[in-house]
């Protein structure tokens, strides 16, 4: 039987892991702040 294709690459990644892999450094991991909030 051919092998299966795993869309998660064998990892159970959460939102913050995915964003970290992209090199993102968002607020609390996945929040985009606007200018006023940044200040």
């Amino acid at each position, binding site marked *: 039987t051919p092998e299966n294709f795993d869309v998660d690459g*064998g990892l159970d990644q959460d*939102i913050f892991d995915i964003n970290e*892999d992209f090199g993102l450094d968002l607020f609390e*991991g*996945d929040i985009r702040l606007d200018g006023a909030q940044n200040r």
Partner: protein
Amino acid sequence: NSIIGEKYRWPHTIPYVLEDSLEMNAKGIILNAFERYRLKTCIDFKPWAGEANYLSVFKGSGCWSSVGNRRVRKQDLSIGAGCDRIATVQHELLHALGFWHEQSRSDRDDYIRIIWDRIQPDKEHNFNTYDDQVSDSLNVPYDYTSVMHYSKTAFQNGTEPTIVTKISNFMDVIGQRMDFSEYDLLKLNQLYNCSSSLSFMDSCDFELENVCGMIQSSSDSADWQRVSWAPGGPGSDHSNMGRCTGSGFFMHFDSSSVSVGAIAILESRTLYPKRGFQCLQLFLYNSGSENDQLNIYIREYSAGSVNGTLTLVEEIKDIPTGSWQLYHVTLEVTSKFRVVFAGVRGPGASRGGLSMDDINLSETRCPHHVWHIRNFTQFIGSPNGILYSPPFYSSKGYAFQIHLTLSHLTNAGIYLHLISGANDDQLQWPCPWQQATMTLLDQNPDIRQRMSNQRSVTTDPLMTTDNGTYFWDRPSKVGAVAFFPNGTQFNRSMGYGTSAFITYQRLKSRDFIKGNDVYILLTMEDISHLNSTQMQPIPTSGNSDLCSDVKCENDGICVVRDGNAECRCPSWDDWWYSGQRCEKRGSTRDTIIIAVSSTAAVFALMLIVTLVSVYCTRNKYRAKGSSHGADLTLENRHAF
């Protein structure tokens, strides 16, 4: 916990644009996430039609959102690679609706401990808290089960947890990505003053004596009884499975005490549809004759029929005996109606009857198929835990099979396989844009309280394997030979799915396993239509003048974007129109021809340049060789 300030609220119907950049699978999942909001909250979504503010959902880098309505006209929400999970979309939408993470609420230190020295350097800001002047927990207890809670591994610099729950049993509960928790819904519905939802209609577990307003008919020959057990079975209801002594009721039609042909009718209360399509879901137990059946009718009211017109929708026959079974019935009712449940005594001996429990009616689409797995727990973590579903057909005619892996240490995996089927000669190959949605059903009696675990995958006709073949090509061409349990041979293509569908720990939680039975709900639908650009609104004021001078050819539509008129061109699976006025026709074939001819042209050009260079260099050194022959000899002698 929500951001304080009315200015951050959206209207109850949120305008959205699904941008072209989104992956096809993500587009389908986003629409499914909207459906979960429509079922469980009063929040609805509609394609943007020129409203002042809208959500622009696009494929950016990662999964992210802003918190609340920022009133910036176009508010971005990214569903990037790896973010195409329904619960992730629900999470990002909850941010957009005004919610922070659960672990950032002001009182979180009462419930969890943040282990600061296990957090990666400079990532501490991810564990900020907000005081109650900025953030409101809406008088709802701290929620370890929230879809807005991060898991224990968030931003860790090693292997030890960064979030430790003060009640240790919740360590592996935090971070669920299945569905809204009960408290998520309580907070969202409170924040947006929700008192009803668009698609929920009724739920009945028969625990209350009023049986949810259902009525016994006077025009039948027998009655349904509300009982907590029946002499011939079942021994308990489905809602509680006997876990609560003295409670746990269901409705029973005793077919053993009536003659063949006797009918017991139970009618639901009056219901008022909004969407025109419904799914009725119920659990049945047969302890009577194998020929006993349940007929589902609709009594629909109109001006011309005050007593309603009765229409038979489905005859549920061959109900297996001895266990609760899940059934779905698709309805398409547009005016006031009741659902009529008619138990019919069939021929043959009966020592019991028909029982029904946990009825849910919603204006949603029924799953296309149900895979019922019995005696489930024996497979968890076992080498035998590699299960294949029976074969199913999609509405387009593609044959497929689901593969559940329960043999690994911690996680269950789930995969979609295309298999050879009866329609293969008539179908398009490689299989284009069929989205399979696989749902592990949380068998909570109330559809609104369910936290079912769902993943979707989509067939991309251009996807290739390492050896260059199309992944979703015809199974008889690219699949391997396999056999059904009855010995019939078929071909099965490679599976496509995830090894991290759900952890065993979560699988054993809630009501995923009930009576040692598990249900996987399956839908495979054609999402090709999502390949085309979402129609942008045609502005009604000012901007419309910009389009008056632009004529789009080939049924293209003029839209105003960033103050400029531009044409949105129609496209299909393998061809499209492009150009400023949609005047150019393109196709996949053209693209291939262009790619091949460009490659050939570049190769020819490079060959000419190389030959000319070699020729010139040779001539140059020949000339040099003849004039400096003595020097060369001297250098060679020196070298040796």
